């Protein structure tokens, strides 16, 4: 299924589940966002991160601890 098709199904269903209303322009914005973001999100989900050792509470002002 293309991202545009999934957006047509997913967005109204998700909004209904959250109880959030949207007008036609907002829906168009969300469809465009879905088409832009969903394919890379699916790529991200497919990324194998099982070997990534966690960095608990990372201090972003510093380099990560040496491993």
């Amino acid at each position, binding site marked *: 299924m293309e991202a545009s098709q999934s957006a047509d199904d*997913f*967005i109204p269903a*998700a*909004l209904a589940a*959250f*109880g*959030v*209303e*949207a*007008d036609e*322009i*907002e*829906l*168009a*914005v*969300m469809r465009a*966002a*879905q088409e*832009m*973001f969903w394919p*890379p*999100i699916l*790529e*991200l*989900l497919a*990324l194998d*991160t099982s070997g*990534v*050792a*966690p*960095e608990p509470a*990372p*201090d*972003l*002002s*510093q*380099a*990560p601890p*040496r*491993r």
Partner: protein
Amino acid sequence: MSEPLDLPLREQAAAIAAGQIEAGELLEAALARIEARNPAINAVVETFPERSREMAAVAPPGPLHGVPVVIKDEWPLPWRAQRFGAADMLAKTAPGESGPYRALRDAGAVIVGVGNMHELGASSTGNVSVYGPARNPWNLERCPGGSSSGPAAAVAARLVAGAVGADGVGSIRYPATYCGLTGLKPTFGRSAMDGHHMAGVSTTIVSGPLCADAGDCRLLGSVLYGKELRAGDAGALRIGVIEDEVSADVAPAVGEACEAAIEELQRATGGEVRTIELPELPAATLATVLIANSESLGGVTPERLNSLDPELSPLGRGLLKYRLMLPAVATVKAHQVRTMARQRLAEVFEEVDVIAWPTVPAVAPPLEAPLVELPSGTLTADAANVRSGALANLTGIPAISVPVGSSEGLPIGLQLQAAWGRDELLLDAAEALERANGRRWVDAVPPLAAAEQTEA
């Protein structure tokens, strides 16, 4: 340039300290210049002359004693709550003393106005704001960059010599590039941030300076950091460049100017250029967007989303609601990508001192249609810009954008990124580059400012 307002920030401060200019005189000159030039660029959305005069009257001795500056509409002031460029924002705000305000006040600076910004900080263009768009002083029909659009346009038009912006996903560096300025994104957590509505929640946003050159960024940055950013020698700089599809996907003029600047920097410092690999970069870009967007959801309720101010742009309303649909598992993955990227960068910075690439892949796009033409095709400016801006925010490293060229009469910027805490090195490198190119680009003045100087 003979007008005091046209002097660099550090020379304004020195002239006041030497008694050559009165702080009050400089403030009135800044207010007059805002009145004269701002209608064309909409960079400053509010002035408060009496508050500014009070600040000038009681300004303590300090590194910015009596110097007028602009602050982005992202922090509260004691007399004004931030609006975040929007008719509505999810967070509650109130007037107050933010960290950047206190830092400026205690350094003796005079806040002369509030800078425009892209609505909700949500774009690299600056073409949507509750105040109307800011305009690029180099070409009034082009985007000034975002989200720190007003601070950048104000400095480029020489309304002030320094402004405070914020950078959550490139929001200092993009407008610095589009407006021909130097913009520093500090290492995460090192610059004043309290009082921001996302302080303590955001893991990407920092405050930082936008100025004409690195010397002024060093001065204003030192105030925001609360410590002196000492000048040093960039040394024999090991410059890392990436040769991948994204790095190659830049407008030819931008690629050529940045390559030339990297060569100049290498020659000037007696350093070397090394090719590095960052295979995590594409995933890191999306990860940054996911983390930054999810962090702003804390105050969201369906009821709140159903009662957004209708004056908020349709784009803003739609994107706020869309954030609800970002899957939690993707955000978890995004944090894992952050870990991977940080570990990889720690290794890279054992091999190189800085990573260099174009700050954005094309010059400022039209305000009415912010699209850019790249070798890969036509992209929205946001989609193109985030690829080079996000990594520093995801990982926490510092980054700087420096002007290095021009195309179609619009500035081109080179981004340098360094390891955590090496913010001073970025300033040293930027200054080395300025010396190498004879300050050609940092001293360039846009037509809006140059015309009046000629008339004067």
